[in-house]
């Protein structure tokens, strides 16, 4: 009994310093860092990079990925396979390497219960994953996009896959003709995207609501969307237009012809800002690509463009009337609100082009024209009031001049008398 007590006491005294050290965490021995710091330059600054790595931030260390025993100073022991040392994975083994943790919900839950764990299985379905499985050493693996050491969170603006940076990251391979040679796919997507409406919004204006490559192609599951799925892809944001399209006669026609829904008119990577010229039968009208002159579609297109042009004209007339009324000093703030309403209806009419139904568009433009008419009427009233003001003024001026003349005569009379 006495011996046992003494034994525990001795053990406690021996262990106490290590317990304190373990509690501080940072004091925990890490021979990987100790050595790699010294040879960091030849290693690409691995230790330095890890400072902002998300894994290091949640308390993981080198051995948690690479295995081995960081408590030993002996390189033979620390890097021995018996201690589970893996070292750097081969390039095509990287997905499996990361998936050891990232595909394990039980492991991931304590760190971030909301982080998906399906990346690896999705990756296996992607073009990258399939080719990787076939032994293609060229395709993207986890580290191609996320980096290896110094991996940042996706919502970190400095991460290569932060939404605004993602297109450039994809383009590192996909815009390199030399690199892509073996696959026989175009390499101009990034150039087109950059000039398109989405690219301008995201890359130039920093609008994170705008889509990047992965918004349409998927990220881990990245592949080329099949024709029939294009509508669904666009409908992630453009719901209304897609709903209208799906209910329109075009839907059936596109399906039969096996052409994508939206991309036929709007392109895929080089999506331009829409203009009214795309509609109708004039130069630049897309409708003419399929609809022959004097066909039903031709006439519908012409009619729809006509309604929109009509409302556009009315709105611009109403705006001119308001500006003119404001220019002569009348307040038109109430009409300005109405004018906004008319502009909204014009935008709505343009959206409803996707129903490809002239009567529907006509009913919207009619409503818009009523509002625009009301604005024009208000501007007219304001102008009439302005004229009345001036007339009143000149009556007053007339009396003032007459008064001055009367006074003048009065003075002359008085001074003649004296």
């Amino acid at each position: 009994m006495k011996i046992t007590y003494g034994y525990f006491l001795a053990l406690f005294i021996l262990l106490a310093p290590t317990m304190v050290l373990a509690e501080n965490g940072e004091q925990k021995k890490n021979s990987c860092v100790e050595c790699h710091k010294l040879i960091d330059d030849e290693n690409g600054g691995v230790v330095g990079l890890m400072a902002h790595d998300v894994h290091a931030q949640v308390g993981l260390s080198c051995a948690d990925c690479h295995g081995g025993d960081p408590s030993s100073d002996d390189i033979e022991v620390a890097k021995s396979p018996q201690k589970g040392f893996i070292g750097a994975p081969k390039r095509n083994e990287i997905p499996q390497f990361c998936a050891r943790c990232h595909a394990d919900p039980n492991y991931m839950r304590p760190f971030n219960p909301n982080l998906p764990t399906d990346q690896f299985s999705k990756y296996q379905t992607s073009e990258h994953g399939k080719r990787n499985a076939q032994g293609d050493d060229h395709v993207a693996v986890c580290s191609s996009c996320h980096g290896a050491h110094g991996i940042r969170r996706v919502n970190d603006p400095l991460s290569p896959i932060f939404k605004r940076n993602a297109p450039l990251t994809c383009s590192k391979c996909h815009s390199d003709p030399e690199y892509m040679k073996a696959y026989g796919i175009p390499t101009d997507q990034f150039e087109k995207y950059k000039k398109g409406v989405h690219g301008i919004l995201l890359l130039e204006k920093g609008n994170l609501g705008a889509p990047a490559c992965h918004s349409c192609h998927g990220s881990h599951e990245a592949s080329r969307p099949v024709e029939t799925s294009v509508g669904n892809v666009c409908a992630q944001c453009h719901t209304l237009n897609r709903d209208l399209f799906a209910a329109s006669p075009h839907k059936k026609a596109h399906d039969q012809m096996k052409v994508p829904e939206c991309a036929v008119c709007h392109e895929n990577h080089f999506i331009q800002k829409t203009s009214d010229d795309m509609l109708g039968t004039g130069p630049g009208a897309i409708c003419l690509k399929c609809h022959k002159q004097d066909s039903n579609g031709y006439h519908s297109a012409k009619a729809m463009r006509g309604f929109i042009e009509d409302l556009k004209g009315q709105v611009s007339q109403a705006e001119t009337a308001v500006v003119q009324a404001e220019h002569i000093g009348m307040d038109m703030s109430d009409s300005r609100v109405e004018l906004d309403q008319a502009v909204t209806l014009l935008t709505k009419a343009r959206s409803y082009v996707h129903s490809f139904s002239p009567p529907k568009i006509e009913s919207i433009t009619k409503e818009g024209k009523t509002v625009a008419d009301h604005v024009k009427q208000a501007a007219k009233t304001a102008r009439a009031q302005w004229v009345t003001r001036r007339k009143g003024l000149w009556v007053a001026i007339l009396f003032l001049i007459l008064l001055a003349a009367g006074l003048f005569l009065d003075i002359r009379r008085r001074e003649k008398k004296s």
Partner: protein
Amino acid sequence: MASLDWIRKRFPIEPFEKLLRKKEVPVYRSNLFYYFGGISLLLFGIQVFSGILLLFYYSPHAGGAYESVRFIMNKVQFGWLIRSVHVWSAHLLIASIFIHLFSTFFMRAYRFPREFTWMTGVFLLMLCLGFGFTGYLLPWNELSFFATKVGTEIIAGVPAIGKFIQTVLRGGEEVGDATLGRFFALHVALFPMMVTGLVLIHLIFIQFQGMSTPPALENKTLKTLPFFPNFILRDCIVWSLTLGLVLVLAVYCPPPLGAKADPFAPTPQGIRPEWYFMWMFQTLKMLPGHILALEGEQAALLVMGILGAGLLFIPWLDIWTRRGKRYSPLTYLGWVILIYMIFTTILGYLHS
């Protein structure tokens, strides 16, 4: 004059009538300038009148000032006219006072015995500039907000007391709701009270002392007109025409309201003060960073302060006139200053 008889029987108004009839107005070439005092008086009356009317609807706080002015201009019947008349009459009033002051200065009408009449006049000019400065902010629009910000910034440059005056005027560190309240109090309560008192003193002095004749004409015998009724009737003609001018300007050039002030917006381009502050503004802009030991701005404020004090005490400073000399170098200095003011004002408008 039956109605006057009715009053005469009840109140002793003869002394006032005598005072009115006593004054004689000399008739000569520069006679025209005698009307500007009267014009200023009429315009001040219009200001009081239209100002009271505006008070019926105006609300002096940052959340509602702009809206209430907009309301007056759009929704209240003839509100546009009242505001427009108030603005234009203010411009003309200050112009008329400047003309009145400079004509009085060049005719050297400030000399004995009219020293105090002159001083009340200088005070009246300064008060009217104060009216302009405070009134400009009241619609709480973008332009006036930033002009006031710049204006009160300049005041802080006055040595020793500048920062204090600025804080008192702004009612805090920044131009805001508190500033509007203070400017409103000055504009509709303190300044009108002071001006009314000073105008009464100014008028009583003038009636007692009669019209001044320029020193050059003092020895000649000039034809004169009785102030009442001959001159006052001429005043009435001028007043009718002035009123007509105010109305034409008010209807044809209604002052814009602009956008509502946004204290957090960046200062917009082309911020400039009202035209009567332009020469000071331009002077401050043209100054080098340092003059002798002083900062440029402080030096300018010092010079302007000296000029203001000099203007006030000109009756005593002008020792040449006091000694009966026919010409005074101060008159030439006055011309130089006038030309400088006109020149910098034009320059200020060309630059912005």
